[in-house]
């Protein structure tokens, strides 16, 4: 296996693909949004329970490739309990990491475990996979009316 592939399919990603965390619709979810990638047929729905500007609970369902499934799974772990604003910042940081120029050092310091996705930068065709659940998460927050767009 070449080094780019090893970077892309790290064991954490393979593990979350096989056993996705929070793969469920939370009982008290009050907003959700679906992300679809018609190119490859990936579908993911992200459910949020927002309470007092905080993501009290989060889950997801759907089917997709290892990158999109693991990304959704790790995202749910990362944003659970976060204030909406912090989740938005994390979205920006994650997005910047997977779309940044591979020749430059990726800013992964604030992303913790999510930095396993830095290898996606080498595969422009897979950026959509890695960000699908994140876009759905953000849309769900925006639709909830509990938040304003930061754009």
């Amino acid at each position: 296996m070449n080094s780019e592939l090893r970077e892309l399919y790290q064991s954490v990603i393979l593990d979350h693909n096989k056993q996705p965390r929070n793969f469920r619709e939370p009982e008290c979810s009050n907003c959700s949004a679906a992300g679809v990638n018609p190119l490859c047929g990936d579908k993911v729905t992200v459910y949020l329970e927002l309470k007092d500007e905080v993501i009290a609970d989060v889950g997801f369902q759907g089917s997709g490739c290892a990158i999109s499934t693991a990304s959704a799974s790790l995202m749910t772990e990362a944003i659970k309990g976060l204030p909406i604003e912090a989740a938005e910042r994390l979205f920006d940081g994650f997005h910047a990491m997977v779309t940044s120029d591979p020749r430059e050092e990726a800013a992964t310091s604030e992303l913790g475990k999510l930095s396993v996705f830095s290898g996606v930068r080498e595969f422009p065709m897979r950026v959509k996979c890695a960000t699908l659940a994140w876009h759905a998460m953000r849309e769900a927050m925006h639709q909830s009316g509990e938040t304003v767009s930061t754009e």
Partner: protein
Amino acid sequence: MSAPNRASTDCTVGFDAERARLDFPILQRSDSERPLVFLDSAASSQKPNQVIDAISKCYREEYANIHRGVYELSARATAMFERVRETAQRFVAAAESREIVFVRNTTEAINLVASSYGRANVGPGDEVLITEMEHHSNIVPWQMLCDQVGATLRVAPIDDRGALMMDELEKLLCDRTKIVAVAHVSNALGSVNPVAEISRLAHSVGAVVVVDGAQAVPHQPVDVQALDCDFYAFSGHKIFGPSGVGVLYGRASILSQMAPYQGGGMMIKTVTFEKTTYEDIPHRFEAGTPDIAGVAGLGAAMDYLTEIGLESIARYEAELLDYATDALSKVPGLRMIGTAPNKVSVLSFVLEGVHPHDVGTILDQQGVAVRTGNHCAMPAMEHFNVPATVRASLALYNTRSDVDALVEALLEVREIFG
């Protein structure tokens, strides 16, 4: 990846794939890159020097607008253009060259028929019959037509091998059926449909038959008169010609009754602000300046295939498909999608526990180019209950060593995903 060992195993009578490969510059790439194992010709095929040179020659030596200038260069370009029409006529064995309409691609050809023939001949309560294996380009135009005129779209099902269920198709035919639109070969499954039999059944209820031939023409000789279809569409870019140009064959007696699809230059006889009279077929359907150099390239592509001989290409590819089917069956956890008894060129499959998109990325890293996704055939994917497949498609330039490279790369996928 193992060292290429081609010549020993790839020769079949009458066709030498190794020699054909030399015609395709992209397959010769060496420098620092890996050799290209190109298994995505069903999406678009690579181009031989003969086609590239014909396009270049057109621009360098004989380019001018056609059917317009009185000067010699325009006359030469026009003659070239019309010669290619005759080439296309022979290529699909049409009765007359005026039955050949140049279009952008198969999609445009089908839209032309849906729009021009469809709107004039399909009305409220009528039906258009398609099949479950169709490409979106042979679904959506009919859906749009049915919505516009108040007709109903009917779908003939496929069985679990991906073969069209002819008895079901027959049951769906009735006097309300005005159009039957079918793929000659399924792009997602490789299944070959019995078009001649479908024509017979459709004609018996008075329906016309529209054939999406995009996936058939690169692999086997096509005879529209033997198929007895009323329309037959194909794209240049899938038969080793350029993108942006394709062919619609239409039976003259039907074409000549049809209204123009687009209005503009070239398709008229006289224009006043009160009334326009239209050109005869086929020019009536060729409004505006066409892709002149593209047509030159398409002509070269058809000549190329004719010279090699589609019969021998078909024999060679059938043998290669058998080899590939057998080789893939040995990959652990591989499930073939589309196992119709009569199929060509397409190996669509899923690997247990691995999403096709991941397979595609890992294969690409080994220099193996395949298509992954729903192949613009979502209903067919749904039939097999998969969101997507990996599709390796074969063309005349593929060899057993391409198949071996695919299998080896798939074993690598297994290694990564366990």
